[in-house]
């Protein structure tokens, strides 16, 4: 690894020794440092000072390179934000599809450039709004979608060929994907022109977000089928968004976030390759999703490391030859877990710093949290400030004018390399344990995350990691009042009526036959998407389609890990 053409940094090391003796030691003797060690949010110890000696083993052309070229450390595209800024994509979803459609149109009017859809818990978990399990949760934390009629209402008057639409949904993703395709078709749009993303990342559900229906293996097959279908019919659509966000929000370290997410990405690559699809063919359509947490330097390094690791993995492990198949593109959301319920306006400052880290880390799209994140789903004023935060970064700060501005920082480059090295250790461990699915079944990821979460919690309790306004500088007078999102209690009733109306209009015989066909296909190895699309077209509901597979696939029960 040692570079021959580079001067050995003895000069720097000698200088550093001298500095420690002459300047540092006398100074700390008079004024000791305020802590013995400084650790990142993830627990990595930071050095007092980084110098060229810390990056002596790194080779610029090999490890850093140029934007738009492997290993993409400096960014996935040649001009980055000089061509166009990242997509400002605020997620929204509440009440019925009509309610959310209003919010989308408001955000587009405010200058938002992409749409991102948050579904309610029943939709995410494959229950219809009229299922007893859904009581109290219909339209509460996202929008309720039972049938293709709801999807039509959700994107009403929005040009699906022009604006990219993201959908955050997982265990029931293949059904909602089918609904989206049928809705687009019924409105006369060409599938080949649709752009957007469906999250569809089941691995991280078992690891961290904990939304599931079926056991991992049949669930992986549903992901595989939807990727394969999408690659064939929707050349501009991202059929999976491999997500580290939830893993980090569940308490992982930055290293675990990257390692487990890229390992999941590799597992999907393996699955799809089994169908005989070439890696260069579908890998360009894989997209990723990370959090941007509050530890600024660590986060910037994390994004850069993620791109480099993925490029190398795609090339070395999977034999990708096209640069696009090695190029990691990702969406970022600022960290919900960093937001506090006390003094909620402080979250505006946190979110701005996190957003800046995402931009300096080279994100392709970004959601900034509302200041009320720890209290409820965002109110309209909270969303507006969150969007304005992104616009200020893009238009006022100047950081969008040059590419990967922090490259070459001794600290950033060293942290980038350290994160990469730590991730490679995790990959080796995962392989040793029999791969990603086996690690899920054996609770390996879950245990690693639970331990990291508890460790961070303990650090907060010991005041080794402070939260301003909560663990430090706490003001125990009344918490400042902010207006929160108003929950429309009547929305669930309206949704139940809409569902009943859809059921009243449809041909039950056709629905039964279509559901039987979905079940038949599920028991074979055929692609499940065409049968699902047909079922959706005749207005079978999401819950009906999910339920018809339960006896075939089984249901998942977790083994709780503490």
């Amino acid at each position: 690894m040692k570079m021959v053409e580079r001067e050995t940094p003895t000069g720097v090391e000698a200088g550093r020794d001298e500095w420690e003796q002459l300047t540092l030691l006398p100074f700390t003797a008079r004024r000791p440092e305020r802590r013995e060690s400084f650790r990142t949010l993830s627990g990595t110890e930071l050095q007092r000072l980084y110098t060229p000696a810390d990056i002596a083993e790194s080779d610029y052309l090999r490890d850093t390179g140029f934007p738009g070229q492997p290993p993409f450390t400096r960014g996935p595209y040649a001009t980055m934000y000089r061509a166009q800024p990242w997509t400002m994509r605020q997620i929204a979803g509440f009440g019925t599809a009509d309610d959310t459609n209003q919010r989308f149109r408001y955000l587009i009017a405010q200058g938002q450039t992409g749409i991102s859809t948050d579904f309610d818990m029943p939709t995410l978990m494959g229950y219809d709004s009229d299922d007893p399990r859904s009581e109290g949760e219909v339209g509460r934390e996202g929008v309720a979608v039972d049938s293709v009629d709801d999807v039509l209402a959700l994107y009403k008057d929005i040009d699906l060929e022009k604006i990219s639409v993201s959908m955050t949904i997982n265990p029931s993703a293949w059904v909602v994907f089918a609904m989206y395709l049928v809705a687009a078709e019924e409105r006369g749009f060409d599938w080949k022109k649709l752009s957007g993303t469906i999250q569809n990342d089941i691995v991280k559900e078992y690891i961290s977000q904990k939304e599931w229906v079926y056991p991992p293996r049949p669930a992986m097959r549903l992901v595989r089928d939807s990727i394969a279908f999408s690659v064939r019919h929707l050349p501009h659509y991202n059929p999976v968004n491999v997500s580290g966000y939830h893993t980090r929000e569940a308490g992982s370290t930055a290293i675990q976030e990257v390692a487990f997410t890229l390992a999941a990405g590799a597992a999907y690559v393996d699955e799809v390759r089994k169908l005989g699809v070439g890696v260069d063919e579908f890998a360009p359509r894989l997209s990723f999703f990370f959090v941007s947490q509050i530890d600024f330097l660590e986060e910037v390094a994390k994004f850069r490391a993620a791109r480099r690791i993925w490029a190398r993995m795609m090339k070395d492990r999977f034999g990708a030859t096209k640069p696009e198949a090695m190029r990691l593109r990702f969406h970022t959301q600022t960290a919900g877990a960093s937001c506090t319920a006390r003094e909620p306006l402080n979250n505006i400052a946190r979110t701005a710093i996190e957003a800046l880290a995402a931009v300096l880390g080279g994100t392709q799209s970004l959601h900034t949290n509302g200041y009320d994140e720890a209290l409820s789903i965002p109110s309209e004023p909270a969303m507006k400030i969150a969007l304005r935060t992104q616009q200020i970064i893009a238009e006022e700060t100047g950081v969008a004018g040059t590419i990967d501005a922090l490259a070459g920082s001794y600290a950033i480059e060293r942290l980038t390399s350290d994160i990469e090295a730590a991730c490679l250790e995790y990959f080796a461990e995962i392989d040793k344990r029999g791969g990603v699915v086996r690690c899920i079944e054996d609770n390996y990821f879950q245990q690693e995350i639970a331990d990291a979460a508890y460790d961070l919690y303990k650090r907060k309790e010991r005041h080794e990691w402070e939260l301003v306004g909560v663990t430090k500088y706490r003001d125990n007078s009344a918490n400042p009042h902010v207006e929160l999102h108003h929950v429309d209690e009547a929305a669930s009733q309206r949704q139940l009526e809409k569902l009943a109306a859809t059921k009243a209009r449809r041909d039950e015989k056709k629905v039964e036959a279509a559901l039987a066909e979905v079940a038949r296909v599920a028991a074979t190895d055929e692609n499940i998407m065409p049968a699902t699309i047909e079922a959706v077209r005749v207005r079978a509901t999401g819950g009906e389609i999910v339920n018809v597979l339960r006896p075939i696939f089984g249901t998942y029960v977790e083994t709780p890990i503490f």
Partner: protein
Amino acid sequence: MPIKVLVAKPGLDGHDRGAKIVARALRDAGMEVVYTGLHQTPEMIVTAAVQEDVDVIGISILSGAHMTVFPKVLKLLGERGVDDIVVIGGGVIQEADGPKLKALGVRELFDSDATTQDLIDGIERVVAEFGRAQKRTDAARSTA
């Protein structure tokens, strides 16, 4: 005797980071913690609480369905002839709903910024004030 707590996760969401940290912290504080797992209905929570005969049910809820879940749990406890298990809650519960839940019989609510020490102290307090352990010990002694 150790306080026995049911840490319950109702609703369809999977936000169990808080519940698990709580379970671990209460264990470290010497309590016996029964964890229900995710996605529990009020019926499942009450069945577990009765079979485990816990001192406290701690409901961790972030899905916004608290005004549905808490009343149901309290009602079902009554129907099962249980009046001495203390119900408390934590998670994202909007300020305005706090007094309503307290009026229904929820003894304590913790927001997402509460420390585990807040929680431990709170549990010890509600058990001392509303719990049954003391009552039962006295009853057993008087009949012995």
